């Protein structure tokens, strides 16, 4: 029977499931917060949490784009630090925030292009390429700043702290990045091809796509995301430390894993990434507010990521279960010599 168009669903298959899982986790976390530490959900506390969540979300969206292609961007730490350093030092030296921001974004594009070229043209493993570029970027940070942090221009600080129509500007920035990236990936020709190349390089090449270009672009987009995050962090912290980007290495990867994006590449949802960033930040907030030391924050983070992976990597569990079953079945056959020992023949050495 030919397919008659069934009711169209908005959430698409596995994509919807992933969104649902992190959404559910976030809901549970908010409920727990409500019971254990209702203070964390009060307006003023939420207002201190949201900027951090927003900046993490922006950086993690960049990381997501790279991970979609089976890569891993270790240069996030260097790129965020570099952006923070350039925007503060640039404003001081050149004078004027717009020029500093242009400089920052230009530098980020260079970082992204170098990453992408190393991966796509020189076929260096993404991790190693971005590891090397990270070192280079940190070198530039040290060189530009001379080892001393610079105060952010007051205009930038004002922008990052103020609100527009009652919404924090950092949150607005995160929403804008989320919307732009989400729409481009979902609705445009370029975005659709980006997703396809991430799902299968070989199939994309056989379908006649310009695969090498699509392998460079994600690193550039990611670097631009890091630049936005770095600029916001600089304004928010007012005098950003030189290694202000360092925590973002582990936390963006953690967010990507929590969002259910497979590290082998493929489909990803930037909405899930944003929810996961919110989840991780609120989790930290909750742990801190109940008086637990920072250490517990780490323990809970690792447990949560492990749990997230465990529910997703069902394949591993199934394999283990199958292994166990064959073990159990390997009982000595109780067959007479005349009969066919079919039960014993079924077993294989694994």
């Amino acid at each position: 029977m030919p397919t008659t168009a069934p009711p169209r669903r908005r959430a698409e298959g596995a994509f919807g499931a992933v969104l649902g899982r992190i959404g559910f986790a976030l809901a549970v976390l908010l409920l727990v917060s409500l019971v254990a530490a209702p203070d964390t959900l009060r307006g003023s506390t939420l207002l201190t949490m949201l900027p951090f969540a927003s900046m993490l979300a922006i950086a993690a969206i960049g990381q997501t784009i790279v991970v979609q292609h089976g890569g891993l961007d270790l240069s996030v730490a260097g790129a965020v630090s570099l952006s923070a350093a350039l925007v503060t030092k640039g404003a001081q030296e050149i004078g004027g925030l717009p020029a500093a921001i242009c400089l920052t974004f230009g530098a980020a594009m260079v970082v992204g292009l170098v990453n992408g070229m190393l991966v796509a043209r020189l076929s260096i493993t993404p991790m190693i390429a971005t590891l090397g570029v990270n070192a280079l970027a940190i070198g530039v940070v040290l060189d530009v700043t001379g080892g001393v942090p610079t105060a952010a221009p007051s205009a930038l600080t004002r922008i990052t702290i103020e609100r527009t129509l009652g919404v924090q500007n950092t949150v607005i920035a995160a929403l804008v990045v989320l919307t732009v990236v989400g729409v481009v990936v979902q609705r445009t020709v370029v975005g659709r091809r980006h997703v396809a190349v991430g799902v299968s390089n070989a199939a994309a090449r056989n379908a006649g796509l310009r695969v090498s270009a699509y392998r460079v672009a994600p690193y550039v987009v990611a670097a631009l995301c890091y630049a936005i995050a770095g600029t916001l962090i600089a304004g928010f912290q007012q005098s950003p430390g030189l290694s202000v980007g360092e925590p973002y290495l582990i936390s963006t990867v953690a967010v990507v894993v929590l969002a259910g994006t497979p590290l082998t590449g493929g489909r990803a949802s930037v909405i899930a990434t944003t929810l996961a960033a919110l989840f991780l930040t609120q989790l930290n907030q909750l742990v801190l507010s109940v008086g637990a030391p920072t250490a517990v924050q780490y323990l809970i983070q690792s447990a949560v990521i492990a749990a997230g992976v465990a529910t997703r990597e069902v394949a591993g569990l199934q394999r283990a279960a199958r292994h166990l079953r064959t073990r159990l079945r390997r009982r000595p056959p109780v067959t007479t010599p005349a009969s066919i020992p079919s039960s014993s023949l079924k077993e294989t050495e694994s």
Partner: protein
Amino acid sequence: MPADIRRALRVQEIHKSYPGVHALRGVSLDVRAGEVHAVVGENGAGKSTLMGVISGSQAADAGTIEIAGTSLDRPSPAATRALGLVIAHQWPALAPDLTVVENMTLAAPRAQVDDRVAWCREALAAVHATASPHDRVHDLSLAQRQLVEVAKAYVASPRLLILDEPTEPLSATEIDNLFAWVERLAADGVGVIYISHRIPEIRRIADRVTVLRDGMVAGSWTLPEISDDEIVHQVVGRPVEAAFADKPKRAARDTPILAVDDFSCDGFADVSLSVHAGEVVGLAGVEGNGQRELLHALAGVAPSRQAVVIDGVQRKIGDVRAARRHGIVYLPADRHDDGLFMRLSVRENLALSTLGERRRGGFVRRGAEREAVNRQIERLDVRAASSETEVATLSGGNQQKVLIGAAMMAGPRVFLLEDPTQGVDVGARAEIYRSLRALAADGAAVLIVSSDPIELEGLCDRVLVFARGRVVAELCDEQVTEHEIAQAALMVAAAREPGGSGSAKVRFLRGDYFPSLVLAGIIVALGAFVASRNGLYLSGQNVRTTLALLAALAFIALGQLVVVQAGGFDLSVGPLSGLIVVVGSFYFAEPLGAGALVLGLLIAATVAFGAGLLNGVMAGPGGISPIVTTLVTFILFQGCSLLLRPTPGGTYDIRLSDALTTAAGPLPVSFAVAVAIGIALEWWLRRTRSGMALRAVGSDDDVARRLGLSPERVRLYAYLGCAGLTFCGSLVLAGQVGIGDPNLGTEYTLMSITAVVLGGASIFGGRGSFVGAMLGALLIVQVMNATTFLGLDDAWQRWLVGLMTLSGAGVYSRLRATRTSP
């Protein structure tokens, strides 16, 4: 029973089913000791399954197997090997990153030899292989690999030998040599099963022949009692399953859409072919004879230098995009990996390659897309719950329809297909045949490679039969029958041209020690330069502190390399080293008694072991990606450190610190121990079976499994070893720091990875050298030290390390990427 002893193999009433396929239906086979027994059959007749069952790698559903008179109750590769069964696979089970002698050592677990190289050389000479024992398998030609596979069989001294199409890549002389050896084996009383598609070869070498057809034995004959024609007759004759569309009468010839003249590329030579509008042309032949390579060259998958004539105009096809521009659309054989985007929806798969035609200002016109997709779904009768269904959840037939539909949306002038109906059910097949015919009727040319002669008979107007890279027959109209196709393919006696062999220089450049040599050069040059600028650089004090710093990093880098060689990754080494220092700070405080020292060491070692076990179980048997696994433990160990010591505290007893930092002149003991362990590990890696197993697992999981190794277990051990070495490194660190600092050590993660990469290890596993990793660590520490002596700022440290990492990775990946082509 005395009668059984002279039987090398007795197989009775074997049944084997896979989901949807009854592959073997009551197969019985007898092989006498001292005979060469040929097994013939079409693709899919059940030969591979039967050999899998005999070797114990696949379990039969029913039936008995006896090898050399011993019946197998529980067949397993290990059990059959113990009885003297040896298989030379058609696709050699050789780990690509290992050398020939290492592969042979892994393949012969019970061989006790003093001089492995001489032993290997003798085996290679016995089968007339020209490969050197030190050649890396990766660099060998297909023919050489095949001969190494046969040499593996030689050293195993088989009592029953299975040769699976061993002559495919070989030249005439190589075939002669191989046959001479097989005859000697048979004369010594070994039973030989010879699987082949070449009747002339079978007639030369075999005593008896058994024909498999459709999972059953069609019969067994001694060779004198059966004619070539009769063998062909027995091989063919599978019932026709699917309905084929009518072939229209061909009209008068106009200019061909696609034509090539004396076309040559890797895998085939001198092919001339022209395809006209409305024609369906088949490319047949036994697997691996150049028909697929021709299709790949036409599709731009494997770029060719020669031009192709399309609609009368000469065109170069450099890549798939160029082919598409000229209306050539290609459908790959492996739809799961090369064709479909399994995790995307039916709609996304269908629309992808033609998105450009339906856009407005960069955005996809969703209405137009949906309409086009639905039209295609209807036309091909794709059965899916909705166009948003993930393709991975569809049946094989519907997946194939989606793939064909996506290609057809591109409006092909020339449609190239590989095995368009493999794994497709009968109903879907008929649909596919119908739509291909319809496409041809609309004026396209269709070119099909298929391993199924019945399909070619039913579908094609013309069939070219390939053998060893050349067209050996062209069948037209009434000649296009299964029998004619099979006969043309089976009666080939020709052999391939002999190929060359790699040089010693290339071998060295791609070897594991080339990076070490480069590093040593850089280290010496940098050292000399800095010393010339600043005399204090080579002072005993500076050398001692540098080497002491190096010792800690060297240990951790060695640990990292153990895991990396096995194809893993360990992000948690840094925090783990910090955690061990923190744990120690609770026991090693002043005054330190013997009891506390032992207890502290025991507990710290237990922590390291537990960490290794946790990583190893998750990333090994657990099957979780190493990055995720060690990311989780990275955070976990850091948390534990902070929990135990929220702020730095717990000063180590000064006597212990002193003991850990003892030095003989400028040479710290810790450094000497690290070097000694590194060299010992290097010896272990190159010389012992377990060291080779580690690299084999990292090199290729599947091959390692076929060699009888368990990748999961090897990876678990690798993580344990890594934790052990990290433990050593953290003791050195503890001596230097002397206090439980929770933030200690994290930087060692990235530094150890950098050291390993500089040392020339492949991050995908299988390649690397412990000496190289130590030199990499030395270079990092040296650069950090040198910059201060040269008066350079911190930025230079980072730049130098970054540039070294990138140039190292870039150069090594370039050197290894170019493979000597078969």
